[in-house]
């Protein structure tokens, strides 16, 4: 009986140990669909001023800025309130008059794919852009 239990225990450890596969490296969402819900175009401000508005919005939302690069237009921020959330926002010039803002977020172990969440972010960004445009600090 004892050796039977031992065999079962060893087998279960092997099953448990082997069951984990590697990480999801490339993500699960469709490349184009994701871009669509994560991106907005603006015609009001230039790249630098838009980046300032993005940073102000992230701060308004309780994020701490981890990294920002003015050349590539990237801003990465983390918020630890209630649940860990990480966002990367990228601002790029589109033609001479437009800037494109793309936001991507992760909450804990999951990527945010809900269009509504991004819509809320852009509503907040719209307000910050308006304040920057009207030179309100």
């Amino acid at each position: 009986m004892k050796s039977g239990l031992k065999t079962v225990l060893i087998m279960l450890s092997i099953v448990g140990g082997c069951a984990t596969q590697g990480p999801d490296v490339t993500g699960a969402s469709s490349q184009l669909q994701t871009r669509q819900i994560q991106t907005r175009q603006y015609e009001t401000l230039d790249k630098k001023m838009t980046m300032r508005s993005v940073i102000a919005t992230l701060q308004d939302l309780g994020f701490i800025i981890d990294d920002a690069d003015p050349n590539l237009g990237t801003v990465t921020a983390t918020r630890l309130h209630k649940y860990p959330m990480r966002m990367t926002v990228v601002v790029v010039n589109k033609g001479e008059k437009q800037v494109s803002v793309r936001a991507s977020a992760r909450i804990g172990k999951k990527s945010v794919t809900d269009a509504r969440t991004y819509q809320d972010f852009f509503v907040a960004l719209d307000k910050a852009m308006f304040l920057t445009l009207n030179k309100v600090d």
Partner: protein
Amino acid sequence: MPKSALRLPESTLELRSIQSRSFEAESEAKILAATVAAMQDMEYNIDTVQIDLGVITASKTTDATSNSAVVGYTMLEILCIAHGTYCDTSEKIPDKFRTTITMVVLPSLARRGEFTARITLHYVTINTLGKVMKRESIVKAETYQQVFEILSNAIFIEANEE
């Protein structure tokens, strides 16, 4: 420190070729912008950017829980209890993966308009107690091919926008 810690393994060249691919692009700025977009497409957050060196590092945390592992270890605990002993298996149950990708995009020294992208991928597995269970580099050629496919699409989109 182990003696072979800084010794190049024989597989270096093979691995380098799996991790590298050449792309054509209008400018360095365009290919770097496409690289950042590809990282976002793959659901990573950008950690650091060194634009002058063409280095972009990004990471993401994903789920590592597997039902069979949880079931297996729960049964193991039940069997232990049934036998009057206690065995805590929480440190054996994987909870999350922390995957880090570094992409280095440099202009070709030989050909104008051509760029070489080299990717390195590694991940750590973290258990339900928040401790690191293992650290591994990803060496599977198929995974790198999938990443390059996404980067290639991103370069195409970048080139055809505006």
